[in-house]
């Protein structure tokens, strides 16, 4: 290439990589699959600068870069707690954090559809003031509209379980 000093440039177009000093695979390394790793989202985010091409201004003003603490109450617990919703990337993580906070297990069971074997019902109050069952809307929308959380305890009477929906029906707009 350096030979083309005076007149025409030597051009030799061919299919295939020029130079070849950087293996094509090396470039693709950033997109390696990670097996079932929960942090895959974080890895993606950190590995490729400027991707996806969402303008920095938009990123800064859309996704809550700050903290988002909401109160959590658990039926029967004497004190309320607080969780930072920005610390979690999804419902699974949030449920796990709640279980840690209150030292119990199985908060997420009620979300698994037609399971009968659950003790807790996690619900939240949204911006409209309605109490909603956790898990119906996309995580980001939930995080933005959640004002506070509550973990209800199912009370068994005569051995008959109550469905989550029935519990919600009994709730009025609390203050």
């Amino acid at each position, binding site marked *: 290439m350096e030979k083309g000093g005076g007149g025409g440039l030597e051009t030799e177009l061919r299919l295939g990589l020029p130079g070849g000093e950087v293996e094509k695979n090396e470039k693709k390394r950033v997109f390696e699959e990670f097996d079932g790793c929960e942090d895959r989202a974080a890895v993606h985010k950190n590995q490729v600068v400027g991707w996806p091409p969402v303008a920095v201004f938009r990123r800064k003003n859309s996704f809550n870069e700050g903290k988002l603490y909401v109160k959590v109450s658990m039926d029967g617990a004497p004190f309320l707690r607080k969780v930072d919703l920005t610390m979690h990337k999804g419902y699974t993580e949030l449920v796990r954090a709640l279980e840690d906070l209150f030292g119990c297990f199985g908060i997420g069971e009620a979300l698994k559809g037609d399971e009968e074997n659950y003790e807790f019902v996690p619900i939240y109050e949204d*911006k409209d003031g309605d109490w909603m069952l956790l898990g119906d809307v996309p995580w980001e929308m939930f995080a933005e509209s959640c004002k506070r959380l509550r973990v209800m305890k199912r009370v068994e009477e005569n051995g008959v379980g109550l469905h989550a929906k029935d519990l919600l029906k009994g709730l009025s707009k609390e203050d």
Partner: protein
Amino acid sequence: MAYSFPEEVLEHVFSFLSSDRDRNAVSLVCKSWYDIERWCRRRIFVGNCYAVSPEIVIRRFPELRAVEMKGKPHFADFNLVPEGWGAYAYPWIAAMAEAYPFLEEIKLKRMVVTDESLELISKSYKNFKVLVLTSCEGFTTDGLASIAANCRHLRELDLRESEVEDLSGHWLSHFPDSCTSLVSLNMSCLGSEVSFSALERLVARSPNLRTLRLNRAVPLERLANLIRRAPQLVELGTGAYSAEIRSDTFSNLADAFSACKQLKTLSGFWDVVPSYLPAMYSVCSGITSLNLSYAAIPSSDLVKLINQCQNLQRLWVLDYIEDSGLDALAASCKGLQELRVFPSDPFGAEPNVPLTEQGLVSVSEGCPKLESVLYFCRQMSNAALIAIAKNRPNFIRFRLCIIDPQAPDYLTLEPLDTGFGAIVENCKELRRLSMTGLLTDRVFKYIGSHAKKLEMLSVAFAGDSDLGLHHVLSGCDSLRKLEIRDCPFGDKALLANAAKLETMRSLWMSSCFVSFGACKLLAQKMPRLNVEVIDERGPPESRPEGCSVERVYVYRTVDSRQRLDRPDFVWTLDEDSSLRYS
């Protein structure tokens, strides 16, 4: 020269020419037309602030009233241009302060503007009217205070998407009571609270106010009072659109909206509480432009809103709208011209909403006037792209971003070459294209063959070899801006098409296979190009030959000197063509 018109007559005729292209053509006719034209040109647009120097502009056009200029390359929006690269407004502002005491308008995009510059503007131009700073940075609210205090005839202050260091909201109170000339105020990018009473008084004493874009810190409870004072508003950007659900707040707001019979554009809607959206319904039938791209609104509420806006021409929205919402859009808004769908969770590994290629196909089917699209999604197929292309041969702008780079056709696992090929083949008026997904050299062959009106192309993680780049540079007759990242394109195609680069505004290549040697060669061959190697790893010469540079930015310029404000990570060829750098 017995038959020539007197100068005054020619000047009068030229005054009817508003397009730059026409004026440039006129000035090429003969020397006297060149001279007459340059004295009566009032507005200029400089697409790249480094393509020309302030001295050259001032020498040629001594009587400008309006200057519009762009600085950093587009990829700066995605952090691909390192901090401190350049695009400083001050040298221009300072030079123009001397030369153009009657300057009225300054519009800057992607430039670094300091408080010093703003103060200079506010004190130098007695008749200053319009300041628009798009995606700019480097100034604080103190600079805004100078503008507010000193520009007595200010009509427009528009800070769209700029990064302002927000020291306090006090700047707004610097508008004197005598200032009644405001037509447009866009403060949506600012963080802190301004004095609400000062804002209300300002709005009340500005009878010509057409555009008011508030910032997030203006609460919903304040909105009604503000718009009541400006029922003549055409464009409104709300602040935070959330409040406790109270019927008096709602009816107050609904009342205020109903008085705004001229409202055409709505934006803002941070922290939106969907129950308050119906307060706007009375104006929806007149709305032509709706920006909900910062609003987390569930699909069902979005659909209700969109169904009210039958005359919608432009919609910017988050992917919360879902495919079903886009179906509704296609059914309701037959006049839709522009659609932008942004990702609510761009960094998530899995899709968080049911929005796919199907939404775009629906809209392309249902909206015959759709000509401009920006669409983020997580899957695409050649079949969908082909359908879209056949539905909408009238596309002018088509920007598709599939979140997973190099994602293939999800149905066939093939590259998306034929899909994008169909786009360029069918959409003969296409001026702007952004592509993503798995793409080989073949798609570039299609582009080179068919995209004859294409002016701007953005490419990422695509292609197999230099042949791809060569197809584009040799085939796209109208190409002005080409920006490439992470593609296996290198020296051969670049050097073979060196002459083409002088017909374009600029070429950006980052994380490609371009060597420093090729950059030097290109700079030597083409004296009217600036070839900037932007590399933060130290002197490129210290690396082995054939090693790729991090980034190269090539642009044409009539300013023969290398730019003097280069930071130490920008390497260019020295004036005497020696192989020195920086």
